[in-house]
């Protein structure tokens, strides 16, 4: 049974756990845009107060346990806790050790894992074993004398594998006067056999105890005998595998052997359930039978688990059935969708409808809504509805009538508006409706929902300016291994970032960054630096000057650092001065990316080198038109139509030019050329030093980079011996 439990636990882990990533370093990914929020697997990532009655917008990407809670909230208006089985109670063995300490000073080690076949381990002692032992110890303390207690404890230590003693010396028992202690030791012996995987002997001993109506362990032994058969099923499975190999023949024989023993266990449990004197263990026996059914009759178990889930209240009952259901549902969804469509219950059918990209089969969700008129089906039909659906009018009307205190409210509105956006509904009217709805939302309490509706609103903006004004999103979560988000931060919508990177030429960047107060100061600054970098690389110095002047207005350090650039007159001097500035500001980039997000959120200085080499820019990888549309996350039509004609083509041409510029080569080359013509410029030695450094610390290099590094190094050392910057440059790279 415990191997079965282990298997289920592993599967649960796979189903419910977050993915694990190897190695590092990891960089934060700030979640704010609808296309980032909607694929998340847990609503708790951004909403700690999630519950079935307050689910927010229900997304089909959620793990089944959250979708179940949402379903129950929609269907019955109830919120239930779920206690998932298999969760490891790390304190169970500590409870035992603590109880044990109350009667002895001797330490004991407990290893809850046992080594199975093929280098795999399994959890040998489940939590209930420790709880039962601790409870029994506390009871026996009251009735046993010191010597009896020592004997009992010694036996129990042997059960838990801590020692090897006299538990199996039945001669020794003859000298024990206390009959309760003798009976305890009989049970301990059976249990020790069980944990030592001597299953035949364990079964015989448990049966012997269970047949003694006077024995205090009779009831538990009756159940334990069945559990022994279940464990044996797995042992026989592994033994066959070892004997016949792991190819198909071996696997078939292994499964056959396992199933034979599981059937025996099932018969055993059935007889326990029929015996009314064993009532205290009936719930456990029922659960064990469910395990067996999971293996032997998965479809039956699937239907049974779903049936329980539709009305269960107990957290453990829900958890127990949900874990089996989730595993079986996932298998069926991949292999036999028709079974769910034809034989599934309301929940599994709803799940499948929600998780389908399109209505499948056509009109399924809408028909269900027509039959049931229930909230879950209203949401599912709204989410998947096609414009030619005959139920369209009724569904949309119904969605609007959902009251604000309904758990379906947010989802109904979101999928309602999403449908209208997708179906090309009048943008102006839709904008009005969305404005009015967003006005009722509390951005502070439900930022993720607010962002999703703001996203829709942005998509129906009549102009680029308005879309930009509506592109600020509150960060709702940060994905990264080592840091958690603290504080409120705003970033640009991801799609708008893509538009900047791919669809806007420099003239548009410059126009935007020279405006006042369009975005937060942090975002404006980052945009400005990026626009400045683009302007310099594209040799558009007038634009670069305007941007630099604006940046200098409010920052004394920048004013000083830009002064060389702003005051220079010739093209060569201008370019060198711009490059000198860039060399001093390694975090300058040509695009808005996740590193730029991190700079904004953490207010990182751009003139400090990144230890992870996210310094300067990488050659721009131009996207194909198809790639551009992909980056706009399915909303290319809505967003691209906001751009004046010819803008995208111009942006593409600029990006093509940027794609040829390797940062360290460009920086070093500019400095080398300027140094040869202006060797007396006092900035040159430092510029050469920084150029050499750039060939080491830039995030991108190519086969030419070392040549530039060497050249800059040689000019520095030959032309400026003894200079402090020469001393600081002992190597080229």
């Amino acid at each position: 049974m415990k191997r079965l439990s282990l298997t289920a636990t592993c599967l649960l882990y796979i189903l419910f756990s977050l993915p694990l990533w190897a190695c590092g370093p990891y960089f934060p990914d700030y979640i704010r845009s609808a296309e980032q929020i909607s694929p998340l697997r847990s609503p708790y990532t951004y909403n700690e107060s999630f519950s079935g009655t307050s689910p927010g917008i229900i997304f089909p990407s959620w793990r089944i346990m959250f979708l179940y809670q949402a379903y129950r909230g929609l269907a019955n208006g109830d919120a239930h806790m779920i206690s998932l089985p298999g969760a490891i109670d790390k304190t169970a063995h500590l409870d035992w050790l603590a109880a044990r300490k109350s009667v002895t000073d001797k330490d004991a080690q407990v290893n809850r894992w046992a080594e199975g076949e093929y280098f795999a381990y399994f959890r040998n002692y489940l939590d209930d074993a420790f709880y039962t032992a601790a409870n029994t110890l506390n009871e026996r303390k009251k009735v046993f004398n010191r010597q009896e207690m020592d004997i009992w404890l010694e036996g129990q230590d042997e059960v838990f594998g801590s020692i090897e003693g006299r538990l199996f010396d039945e001669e020794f028992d003859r000298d024990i006067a206390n009959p309760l202690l003798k009976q305890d030791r009989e049970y301990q012996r059976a249990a020790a056999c069980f944990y030592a995987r001597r299953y035949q002997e364990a079964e015989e001993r448990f049966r012997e105890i269970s047949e003694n109506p006077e024995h205090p362990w009779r009831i538990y032994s009756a159940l334990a005998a069945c559990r022994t058969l279940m464990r044996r099923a797995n042992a026989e499975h592994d033994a066959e595998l070892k004997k016949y190999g792991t190819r198909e023949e071996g696997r078939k024989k292994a499964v056959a052997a396992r199933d034979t023993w599981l059937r025996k266990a099932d018969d055993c449990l059935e007889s326990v359930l029929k015996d009314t004197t064993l009532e205290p263990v009936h719930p456990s026996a029922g659960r064990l039978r469910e395990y067996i059914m999971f293996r032997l009759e998965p479809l039956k178990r699937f239907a049974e688990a779903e049936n329980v889930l539709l009305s269960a209240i107990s957290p453990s009952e829900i958890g127990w059935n949900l874990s089996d259901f989730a595993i079986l549902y996932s298998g069926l969804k991949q292999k036999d969708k028709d079974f769910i469509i034809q034989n599934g219950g309301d929940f599994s059918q709803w799940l499948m409808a929600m998780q389908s990209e399109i209505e499948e089969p056509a009109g399924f969700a809408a028909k269900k809504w027509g039959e049931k008129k229930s909230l879950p089906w209203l949401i599912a039909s709204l989410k998947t509805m096609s414009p030619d659906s005959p139920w369209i009018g009724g569904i949309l009307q119904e969605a609007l009538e959902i009251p604000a205190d309904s758990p379906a409210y947010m989802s109904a509105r979101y999928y309602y508006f999403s449908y209208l956006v997708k179906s090309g509904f009048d943008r102006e009217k839709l904008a009005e409706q969305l404005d009015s709805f967003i006005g009722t939302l509390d951005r502070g309490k439900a930022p993720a929902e607010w962002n999703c509706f703001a996203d829709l609103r942005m998509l129906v903006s009549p102009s680029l300016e308005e879309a930009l004004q509506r592109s600020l999103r509150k960060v709702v979560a940060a994905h990264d291994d080592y840091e958690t988000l603290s504080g409120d931060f705003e970033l640009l919508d991801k799609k708008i970032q893509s538009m900047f990177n791919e669809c806007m030429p420099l003239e548009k960047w410059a126009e935007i960054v020279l405006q006042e107060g369009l975005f937060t100061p942090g975002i404006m600054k980052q945009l400005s630096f990026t626009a400045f970098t683009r302007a310099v690389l594209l040799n558009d110095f007038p634009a670069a000057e305007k941007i630099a002047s604006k940046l200098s207005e409010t920052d004394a350090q920048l004013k000083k650092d830009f002064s060389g650039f702003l005051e220079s007159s010739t093209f060569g001097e201008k370019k060198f001065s711009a490059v000198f500035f860039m060399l001093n500001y390694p975090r300058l980039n040509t695009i808005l990316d996740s590193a730029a997000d991190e700079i904004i959120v953490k207010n990182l200085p751009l003139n400090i080198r990144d230890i992870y080499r996210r310094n300067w820019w990488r050659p721009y990888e131009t996207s194909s038109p198809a790639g551009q549309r992909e980056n706009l996350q399915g909303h290319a039509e809505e967003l691209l139509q906001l751009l004046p004609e010819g803008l995208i083509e111009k942006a593409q041409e600029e990006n093509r030019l940027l794609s040829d510029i390797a940062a360290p080569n460009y920086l070093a080359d500019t400095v080398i050329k300027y140094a040869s013509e202006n060797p007396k410029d006092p900035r040159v030695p430092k510029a050469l030093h920084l150029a050499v450094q750039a060939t080491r610390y830039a995030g991108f290099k190519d086969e030419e980079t070392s040549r530039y590094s060497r050249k800059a190094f040689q000019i520095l050392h030959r032309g400026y011996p003894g200079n402090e910057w020469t001393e600081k440059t002992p190597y080229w790279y």
Partner: protein
Amino acid sequence: MKIGAFGITTAVVCMALYNACTAFGGKAEQNSPEIVLWAWERCENLLFLKEETRVKVAFYAGIIVFREGETVFTPRRQLLIVPPEIPLTAVVRIENRQGFIPDKQQISEAVRIIAITCIKKGISGCQIDFDCRSSEFGFFKSMIEELKDKLPSSMPLSITVIASLSHSGSMVDSLPVDEAVPMLFRTGPDEDLIRKGLAGQSFMKASACQKAAGISLDEPLPHAKYLQDRKLYIFNTRPWTQKDFVEALLKIKLHIKKKVLP
């Protein structure tokens, strides 16, 4: 002239392909690099390695998590089926999730667990997989030193290291390990440099990092010069199959040959 150049190129490519195919034939032979397959926490059936003489397996044997002052060990729970003649290295993954450096007691507990896990019949090597941050290096060093004392002298102790720690002069060289395996995958911003062979003269030149390299099948291979004449640890994001194995060997062999040929 053009035809001649094309002909030479074709001949070179054919020769490389022929050599690669005949050298392997689905097997790692004497002239190929020593290969170690990382077998992670999933059911792995590696019986197809039966006749391989240059292949070893490093298997995930469990994870030690330092959490809230406790040292929690979860051993491997998935079957690992390997031919008995294949040398095995037990890999213990370590994660520090408690926000502070593990104390002496936790180090001792971890060392005891690792030693028990590695000193087993059929296991000939021990590897520690820990993404060590610089602030954790002191603790890591203490742990490795204590572990080295506990392991039999005949058992090689290996560690995995992030690529950026493989430069000459790296603190990795102060560890008493027989081998440090630079992980040349999931390297973040350095990915491009590693692929182009531009990660610098000192890259992978730490003494401990000169014998091996770690790669993953789901990423393009690093530059050949970082793989040549090294024992190669290969990570697969899915359970190993014979097809994956054969293809991986061919890919590596061709990759290395292509770069070596003029």
